[in-house]
């Protein structure tokens, strides 16, 4: 059988069915087939490295194919779906709040949070949890997956990522943003957040809400994790800690560094307000209560 004929067989299956095709081969004559199939697996070794170079995945021996599919394939599918959904979720949760705030600021486009804290949201404060989900999460151990090959089915029926799941996550994000914004808004309605009678400003409310968002979003990643490794712990608690650290530093740089005059003194005034701490205990738990019950 020539390489071209091998590729044509794969092409025939692709055209006549809706299925995803996988081709595995070890020689130079398998390159065409490997490239035509949706997933190409090359076996490195006996007949050279051409097949391996042209493939999406390379394995050392033919028997490793089962582990590639039943363990890493399933894990990869579930992880990718979680990372995708979570990435949409965390951004919708934060940015939709600007819409709720727009109802209260005359739709003038004023942002509730300081602009650099918004910019660094995806870069630093919520970057680690999706990475932990995507690299380390697993529903079952490798041995279990190999022992019960029927579990492969759970990655074959579009159950983890489809239109319904996607919109459920989006609505979940909107629900969280409503709880986080409106509860904080009502909590600080009368402005006086200190026993010495002083009042705050819009950034006081904004930074409190931002802290609650970081908590909710990071804990949501934890709730969605099927397995908590020590790196997952570092990702989640470390992200929250990184926000606190950044907040403290950022609140003290003006005017030594000509940046963020509106943040000067914020950390001191947020942390010295009992409303903040009491809200921190209540509001993230309220937001995640429904998720907790649903996961149960």
């Amino acid at each position, binding site marked *: 059988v020539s390489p071209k004929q091998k590729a044509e067989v794969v092409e025939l299956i692709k055209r006549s069915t809706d299925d995803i095709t996988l081709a595995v081969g070890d020689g130079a004559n398998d390159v065409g087939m490997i490239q035509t199939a949706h997933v190409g697996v090359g076996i490195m070794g006996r007949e050279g490295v051409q097949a391996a170079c042209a493939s999406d995945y390379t394995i050392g021996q033919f028997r490793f194919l089962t582990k590639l599919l039943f363990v890493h394939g399933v894990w990869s599918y579930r992880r990718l779906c979680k990372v995708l959904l979570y990435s949409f979720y965390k951004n919708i949760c934060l940015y939709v709040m600007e819409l709720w705030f727009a109802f209260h600021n*005359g739709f003038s486009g004023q942002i509730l949070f300081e602009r650099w804290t918004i910019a660094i949201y995806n870069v630093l404060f919520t970057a680690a949890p999706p990475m932990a989900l995507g690299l380390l999460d697993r529903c079952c151990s490798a041995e279990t997956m190999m022992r019960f090959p029927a579990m492969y089915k759970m990655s074959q029926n579009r159950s983890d990522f489809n239109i319904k799941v996607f919109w459920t996550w989006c609505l979940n994000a909107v629900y969280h943003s409503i709880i986080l914004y409106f509860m904080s808004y009502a909590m600080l309605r009368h402005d006086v957040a200190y026993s010495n009678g002083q009042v705050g400003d819009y950034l006081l409310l904004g930074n409190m809400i931002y802290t609650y968002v970081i908590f909710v979003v990071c804990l949501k990643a934890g709730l969605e994790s099927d397995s908590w490794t020590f790196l997952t712990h570092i990702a989640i608690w470390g992200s929250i800690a990184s926000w606190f650290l950044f907040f403290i530093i950022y609140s003290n740089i003006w005017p030594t560094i000509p940046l963020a005059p509106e943040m000067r*003194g914020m950390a001191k005034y947020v942390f010295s307000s009992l409303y903040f701490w009491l809200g921190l205990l209540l509001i993230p738990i309220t937001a995640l209560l429904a998720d907790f019950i649903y996961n149960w």
Partner: protein
Amino acid sequence: MPGQGETEEDHEQQKSKKPADTAFKQQRLPAWQPIITANTALPVFLIIGLTFIPIGIVLVITSERVLEHDIDYTDTNCMSTTAANTTCAQALENANYTGQTCTCRINFALDKSFDGDVYFYYGLINYYQNHRRYVRSRDDNQLLGKEGAAASECQPFQKNSTGSGKDYAPCGAIANSKFNDTLSLLYGSENVSVTNVGIAWSTDKAVKFKNPDNASNYFTSTHDKPPNWKVTAWELDESTSENNGYQNEDFIVWMRTAAMPTFRKLYRKLLRNSTFQNGLPKGDYTLVVTYNYPVTSFAGRKQFIISTTSWMGGKNPFLGWSYIAVGIVCMITFVVFFILHKTWKIQNRPPM
């Protein structure tokens, strides 16, 4: 034929391509796999319910103990003492907002004594300090007392382009719209002693707002006062000389732009001496208003607020009631799932 034909180097090269056999690289990291079962979830709900409800009750009681008295003096309450039958709002309007002043006196009674520290606020309603164009209309470098032209964000309140051409000090819409009513209280015929020290954020006063060198010259000759101000920044407080210029505490409080269109700002604090040692006694009071600040053109309202505080802050029972509500929801969830769990357990018991 492989195997015999391989050299030592080939063998080593093949060996080095193999990823290390560590737990991290081989996806074997030990992990806690939390599966939420009834045995783990039910205690969580019970604990949340049992802690939140008492916290909520404490917070509601604390908020109920805070005393507050609001007086809306925008229009009908505040009748001009000079012009007959006109409200101060109308008096300002009749003079076409050319900086007229109007005084009024409002009599009211406190039916409970306000014990402890008492704070006086002015409240504004339908006033959008959180509008984007407004919030950015300031120059924080100028407020540090630095030399240099006023920033362009302050436009159209950057400099007096129609008149002297000098920069406004302070520039910007936030500064220009500074609240300038004077509010004072009389207890019978006695003045209620108040202080205006300590109303602004300490970090603002210490770091963010600094007067330039040669301040009186700066504010009175090299720079103009903002168009809506009656006096220059250097004349804001006649009685305390340090409380002038950018470091005037009323000014600093105003520059902290509020989050919502209904807000209050700290105006004065009660000085607890002689008659007012324990707070504001019960009785009849008069609020004397020097009405300068026009709000009726945009359907705004003004209030004078007298309030005590609790260890938390002002009077807002929302947090307390939320705690109670969430606590009750958790308890209900606990009870419902407990019953379901027990009945299901009985149903699923294997036949004997």
